[in-house]
């Protein structure tokens, strides 16, 4: 990859990702997802469900959490530091910049998801999928999460509170992605919407093994949200320039 792209990505990570301090990183990227996964795993086992799919789903969500919050902060903190106006007025391609800034968070998300999965499997004494297989599922889910994160970044350009867009979109993902609540357990009208959320096809692929369906589904979901994100960013930039 071009040095310029990597340098820009790392610069944005250092400057805008406020959780990159040791305590903040450990707390946000490691402790929080492990704590939540333990809660959901305990919930499943208490009600007699198989704990494996919950551990997989919650660990994939840990990866999605890192992408969504990372991408949101990498745009939202421009506002916190008072540089959003300058950035929006600059000739830089905003969609390209958002993609560039996502790179370190995708790496972070992979690390966070893998640590969460392995730690929680050790805590519950189960290994529903080999680590390598889970790693592929995580990569697949990060593709769609990246598209979703692009949309969240676009929202962060227009919504003043830095944490409202990532919180709302992540909470929606927790319910509708199929990672923690199976799609057939959702209320009727919401059930059909579930398929357009990241992770839904990966989780479906775990229940009924279908590699092509999962890959194609997640790629399509990622593309859909990326397109929505590009439109939101384009609109935000136009609005700012007017």
């Amino acid at each position: 990859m071009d040095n310029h792209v990597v340098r820009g990505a790392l610069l944005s990570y250092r400057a805008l990702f406020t959780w990159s301090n040791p305590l903040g990183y450990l707390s946000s990227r490691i402790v929080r997802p492990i704590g939540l996964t333990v809660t959901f795993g305990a919930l499943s086992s208490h009600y007699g469900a198989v704990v494996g799919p919950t551990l997989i789903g919650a660990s994939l969500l840990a990866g999605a959490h890192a992408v969504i919050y990372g991408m949101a902060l990498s745009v939202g903190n421009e506002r916190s530091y008072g540089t959003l106006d300058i950035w929006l007025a600059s000739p830089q391609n905003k969609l390209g910049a958002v993609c560039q800034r996502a790179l370190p968070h995708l790496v972070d998300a992979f690390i966070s998801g893998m640590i969460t999965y392995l730690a929680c499997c050790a805590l519950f004494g189960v290994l529903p999928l080999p680590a390598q297989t889970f790693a592929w599922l995580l990569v697949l889910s990060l593709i769609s999460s990246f598209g979703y994160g692009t949309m969240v970044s676009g929202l962060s350009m227009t919504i003043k509170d830095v944490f409202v867009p990532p919180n709302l979109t992540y909470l929606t993902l927790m319910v509708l992605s199929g990672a923690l609540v199976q799609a057939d357990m959702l209320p009727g009208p919401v059930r059909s919407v579930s398929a357009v959320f990241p992770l839904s096809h990966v989780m479906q692929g775990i229940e009924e093994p279908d590699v092509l369906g999962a890959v194609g589904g997640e790629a399509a979901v990622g593309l859909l949200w990326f397109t929505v994100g590009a439109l939101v960013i384009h609109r935000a930039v136009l609005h700012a320039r007017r």
Partner: protein
Amino acid sequence: MFPTACRAAIDQIRTQAVSPMSLLAALAMPAVFAFILYSHTATHTDAATAVGIAGIGMLNAVIVDLLVSLSGEKRWKTLYPALSSPGGLIPLVVGRLVGVAVQSLISLPGTLLMLTLIWGMSPNFDWSRWFLGGLCLAVATTALVGLLSYSLLRFPSSPGMTNGLTGVLIALSTLLVPSTALPPFMQPIAWLVPQSHVMAWVHGGAVAELATALSQSTLIYLVILLSVRRVEHAARARAIPLEA
């Protein structure tokens, strides 16, 4: 001291009661957990479920509100005038904690309304355990999270450092499932958390559980007061900075 504490509590409620983040934490997050919980069980809402779900909102709200309020005091440089007043920092911290606890109570009726509308209410709903359990949970949650006051006042804030608390404390507080469902090494730790005893009482346990929760909370509040006194001492004797 009392008027200052009252003023700090009122300020807390006045400035943060309807902030989007506070409402999101107190009402939206528990709604999500309710959906996840009810995907495993198909029963109507009973008092224990209602208090547990409200507890998630309280926990989130207390963490967010305490962080915002104390880091706000540092940013506005209001801790120095408080330090030089006769009561020191304690009335301010106590007032903020009371305000945060009162504010978090919105989760109790807010989540019950949502749970009842979506999943219905059990005919044997125990109103007294719901109400008293909810109040005690707010007291216990504020005590436990209030321990953060020391590090928030004493050290420079590290952004994101409180994010992990939600995950860990939801599990240890046994808000959704009993401690026996937790991984073995976490089970004894859960009983050190006062919320676990409140939840044990709400699930039909003896009054002794509630007494244990309140005793633990009182002890934690004493630790908070002593730690704030330590911050005051450090600020006066060693001139540690009390601003962001």
